[in-house]
């Protein structure tokens, strides 16, 4: 909230410079967003008396003036103006001065004659007749003879105010006004705060002869106070009020509207002024709107209302959207004669819902949403009448109609000073505690260590000892808090096992040259379509955000591949020649749609690689390494993901559970991402992989006896996967098989059509003896038999 310092000084003594005031308010919980000094754009311009004028020899219109600025020496300034004479007081912009129009004035020469500044016109100072009489004259502004020479022009123009923008936290709606902030300043500075006492005279008569008020829904409107003012005398409001309103960002309109706005800014209580003569049946009814009822608001817009919205109606129709905006029909205009003045409290969430539903937010609705004090409703009304009386804006009718269901009692909080200090850990003398709480208006009294506070409704944010602790500390000063070391057992915190395992995988991938990426958890609704999934694919069961920032970020992802493809495309399009990337995040799997309970959030990893040296098998190598350090035994099967190359993809099973799918990205999918090179992706169900229990490691003795190496070269049908050959060899070799290695695979010349040549080395070893020739021959025979069973033809 922006407040003029001058306005604040009306309520409280401020005996420190503005910077100190702001620093101390920040430390009391009122962040200062900005301090603007009025006249900051008018620098080094002073009142000067013309001591001498001589014509310029090289010019027929320039004059050389000697200016008295209250210093020992005169200042020479050349001017083109003709409306001046010796003895005039004028504004002189001296060397290195700034004018509101943005000009920067420095010493110079005009046609060879030194000029140490500039004499200013009203226009050059951005002044109008309202600011200073004579400002509109064509030529130099001639000042009244009352200002001492040398006086800063800011002082002459009364530009010595500061506008401070306080950030008021959501728990202190009572400080969204001059009085609230001034009260706090009084406590912080220890100076006197003066609450204005409303006093005015009525012209008699009885309000009940003018209007009847009925509140039909006290739940939504706990208090409604109405007053009548006759014979309005509408004119501009006084200068001080206009300045205060303008400083707080509102526009002066006329005395009546300005008074309602000023009182809102001063007390925090929004007021609404109705044109009394437009109220049908001279009735005010606070009620829920009827379905389909319409209203045209002050800004000329039409709204259709629903039954949960509260309106202020006259005898016939809604006249005002309660707490949000008035109706066009009962608007105050220059010829309005009589006024009905409303001051009320409306329920915060109702105002909020109505405002949101209709898309309207006003200064008033914002205040009702944050909450206004029920007691303050009447004070604000009284204060408005006082201003109407003092500014002679109309005749006040005797009496007020105050509809409410009883006003709240002060809240009693009992605790002990010890219990308060327990939370803080700092010793504060009891006397200081009581004094601070009393200065804050919390009516504290102490009996031994027992503390009782009587908290008025305006501070309904205060509920217990924790709140009192905060009130005390923000005034006593948080700099009294001295850090203490943690107490209790010295232990190192624990990580969840999943985090430990994940960290290992990340480290592994880093050492394999892969970079970790981070992408948003939500994707475009159509992104999933790029994967060409079947209509029935469960990854299409995505959770939608009801209020997304736009379609691009509208859908919780059920897979990480689309995000990975986007990142690969980004890098490829930036001509980065290769890359290995991985991401660990969550896939969101709804238990049912539409969503009725929290979805499963499953740990997922994606890998994406591309570049000259990358292919299906480099990715397979990464996956195998990940499975290996996770303690999983892997098996590969052909898979059929539509977004992968049909012949270059595989399903990975770890300990017989499907954990990953990987392969070369289908060119159709790649081109949807503007990728024109081969890229390979994997999507790994990390939740499954991390669930695999790693076997406890025990040492196996290193071999004592030599191994025997045998080679097997064979022809097989081209379509037989080498995996089958490996299975045949290992099952034939049995427990003696230590290791097998594919060392040649060939198809082409000298190999019959439809066949391929495959060669393996096999290492056989026994843990307890050197293998005999017979043992070796037996195993050989078994291997050959197994190979022949899968149609292999051994080559000699």
């Amino acid at each position, binding site marked *: 909230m922006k407040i003029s310092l001058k306005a604040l000084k009306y309520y409280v003594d401020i005996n420190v410079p503005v910077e100190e005031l702001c620093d101390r308010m920040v430390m009391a919980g009122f962040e200062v967003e900005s301090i603007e000094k009025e006249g900051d754009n008018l620098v080094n311009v002073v009142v000067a008396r013309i001591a001498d004028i001589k014509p310029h020899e090289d010019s027929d219109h320039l004059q050389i003036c000697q200016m008295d600025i209250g210093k020992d020496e005169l200042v020479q300034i050349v001017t083109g103006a003709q409306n001046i004479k010796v003895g005039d007081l004028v504004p002189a912009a001296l060397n290195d001065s700034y004018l509101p129009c943005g000009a920067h004035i420095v010493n110079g020469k005009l046609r060879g004659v030194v000029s140490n500044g500039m004499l200013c016109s009203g226009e050059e100072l951005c002044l109008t007749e309202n600011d200073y009489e004579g400002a509109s004259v064509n030529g130099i502004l001639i000042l009244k003879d009352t200002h001492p020479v040398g006086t800063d022009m800011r002082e002459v123009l009364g530009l010595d105010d500061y506008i401070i923008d306080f950030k008021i936290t959501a728990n202190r709606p009572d400080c969204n006004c001059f009085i609230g902030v001034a009260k706090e300043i009084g406590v912080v500075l220890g100076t006197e705060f003066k609450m204005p006492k409303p006093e005015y005279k009525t012209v008699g008569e009885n309000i009940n002869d003018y209007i009847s008020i009925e509140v039909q829904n006290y739940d939504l409107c706990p208090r409604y106070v109405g007053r009548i003012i006759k014979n309005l005398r509408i004119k501009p409001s006084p200068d001080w009020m206009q300045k205060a309103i303008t400083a707080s960002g509102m526009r002066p309109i006329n005395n009546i509207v300005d008074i309602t706005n000023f009182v809102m800014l001063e007390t925090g209580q929004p007021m609404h002024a109705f044109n009394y003569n437009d109220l049908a049946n001279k009735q005010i009814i606070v009620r829920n709107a009827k379905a389909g009822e319409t209203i045209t608001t002050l800004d000329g817009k039409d709204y259709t209302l629903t039954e949960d919205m509260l309106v202020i109606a006259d005898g016939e129709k809604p006249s005002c959207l309660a707490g949000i905006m008035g109706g066009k029909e009962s608007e105050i205009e220059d010829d309005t004669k009589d006024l009905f003045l409303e001051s009320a409290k409306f329920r915060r969430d109702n105002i909020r819902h109505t405002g949101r539903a209709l898309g309207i937010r006003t200064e008033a609705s914002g205040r009702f949403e944050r909450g206004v004090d029920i007691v303050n409703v009447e004070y604000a009304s009284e204060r408005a009448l006082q201003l109407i009386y003092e500014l002679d804006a109309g005749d006040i009718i005797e009496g007020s109609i105050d509809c409410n269901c009883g006003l709240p009692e002060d809240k009693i909080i009992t605790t002990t000073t010890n219990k308060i200090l327990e939370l803080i850990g700092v010793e504060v003398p009891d006397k200081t505690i009581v004094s601070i709480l009393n200065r804050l208006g919390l009516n504290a009294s102490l009996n031994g260590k027992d503390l009782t506070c009587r908290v008025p409704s305006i501070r309904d944010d205060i509920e217990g000892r924790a709140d009192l602790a905060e009130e005390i500390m923000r005034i006593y000063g948080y700099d009294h808090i001295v850090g203490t070391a943690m107490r209790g057992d010295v232990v190192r*915190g624990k990580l969840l096992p999943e985090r430990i395992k994940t960290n290992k995988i990340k480290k592994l991938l880093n050492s394999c040259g892969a970079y970790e990426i981070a992408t948003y958890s939500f994707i475009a609704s159509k992104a999933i379509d790029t994967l060409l999934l079947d209509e029935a694919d469960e990854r299409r069961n995505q959770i939608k955000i009801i209020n997304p920032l736009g379609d691009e970020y509208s859908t919780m992802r059920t897979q990480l591949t689309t995000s990975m493809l986007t990142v690969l495309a980004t890098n490829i399009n*930036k001509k980065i020649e290769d890359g290995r990337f991985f991401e660990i995040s969550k896939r969101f799997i709804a238990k049912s749609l539409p969503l009725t309970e929290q979805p499963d959030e499953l740990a997922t990893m994606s890998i994406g690689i591309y570049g000259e040296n990358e292919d299906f098998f480099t990715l397979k190598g990464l996956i195998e390494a990940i499975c290996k350090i996770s303690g999983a035994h892997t098996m590969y099967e052909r898979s059929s993901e539509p977004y992968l190359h049909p012949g270059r993809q595989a399903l990975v099973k770890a300990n017989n559970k499907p954990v990953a799918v990987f392969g070369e990205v289908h060119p159709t999918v790649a081109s949807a991402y503007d990728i024109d090179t081969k890229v390979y992706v994997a999507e790994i169900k990390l939740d499954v992989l991390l669930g695999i229990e790693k076997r406890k490691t025990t040492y196996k003795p290193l071999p004592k006896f030599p191994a025997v190496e045998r080679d097997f070269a064979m022809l097989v049908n081209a379509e037989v996967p080498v995996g089958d050959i490996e299975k045949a060899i290992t099952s034939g070799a049995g427990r003696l098989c230590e290791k097998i290695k594919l060392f040649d695979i060939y198809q082409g010349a000298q190999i019959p059509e439809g066949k391929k040549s495959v060669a393996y080395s096999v290492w056989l070893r026994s843990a307890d003896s050197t293998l005999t020739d017979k043992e070796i021959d037996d195993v050989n025979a078994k291997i050959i038999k197994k190979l022949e069973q899968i149609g292999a033809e051994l080559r000699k």
Partner: protein
Amino acid sequence: MKEQLKSISLAAKQAVEICENESEIENVRVKYLGKKGELTAILKQMGGLSPEERPIMGQLVNEAKAELEELINAKREVLKAKATEEKLKAETIDITMPAKEVKVGKLHPLNTVLDDMINIFQSMGFDVVDGPEVETDHYNFECLNVPADHPARDMQDTFYLAENLLLRTQTSAAQIRTMETRKPPIRVICPGRVFRADEVDATHSPVFHQIEGLVVDKGVTMCDLKGVLEQFAHEIYGSDTKVKFRPSFFPFTEPSVEVDVTCSECGGKGCRVCKGSGWIEILGAGMVHPNVLKSCGIDPEEYSGFAFGIGLDRLTTTRYKISDIRLLFENDKRFLDQF
């Protein structure tokens, strides 16, 4: 004969001296010490000597042979060393030629910073826990003392997935889940992803990351909170960093504070980074609100606690002076490689 021995020995020594490689020295050895060598020949002449002279002469010859042998061996070592040296010299390479690249990836900068933080808090005895990103209104707001009509809901624009389900706006929700499942003493941090409906720009992202800290025990005070945050600040920003509490408001803590540290750029003197104030705001904290403790079944009369929430993204961008938060989510390899 003695004279002859002397002159052969001398000639042999000279011959060794001038040898330049191993084959030359071998020739010298054969010439003097071989079966038909000159020193061997002398021995053969000893038949003409008297029996008294024979052993004396024999000894002299053997001594001369041994001396020469030693000389030859020594020379051989020298030549061998010289040969090795020359060979190595010839093998000199240009060490500024490019390395055979070992590709090493990096963690995402957010996680590099997070790992540091986890380490710091682990060493102070904080367990690291997780919580769901899709939360119920109950855990994200109600239990955190933000009822439906509370104006604090305005502070956070929330993404909703269903009437009662939302993307968590703060990791504080994990506080509640922790307090429901653990009994005091509690000392945990919960790092995680959070979401708010902020339009994407250089300083805002709808997806960001927080680290929530929670301590609940008997007799926990604000001084303890300051102690923990001081230790954290010292580890992250350096041991002379000062910590300042400024009063603030969060619905789930009371008293609530914003926490500033002395600007690490200027050491508190005031500079462009801290906008001249000498302080930088790094996190929000406070004593756990009694209503929050109560809603988790912990008696606020018996226990107290503190909580703090650190913005990981902000910490990362300030640490590395990253000017645009969008870079964190773009994942350009050249960016990722810098951390």
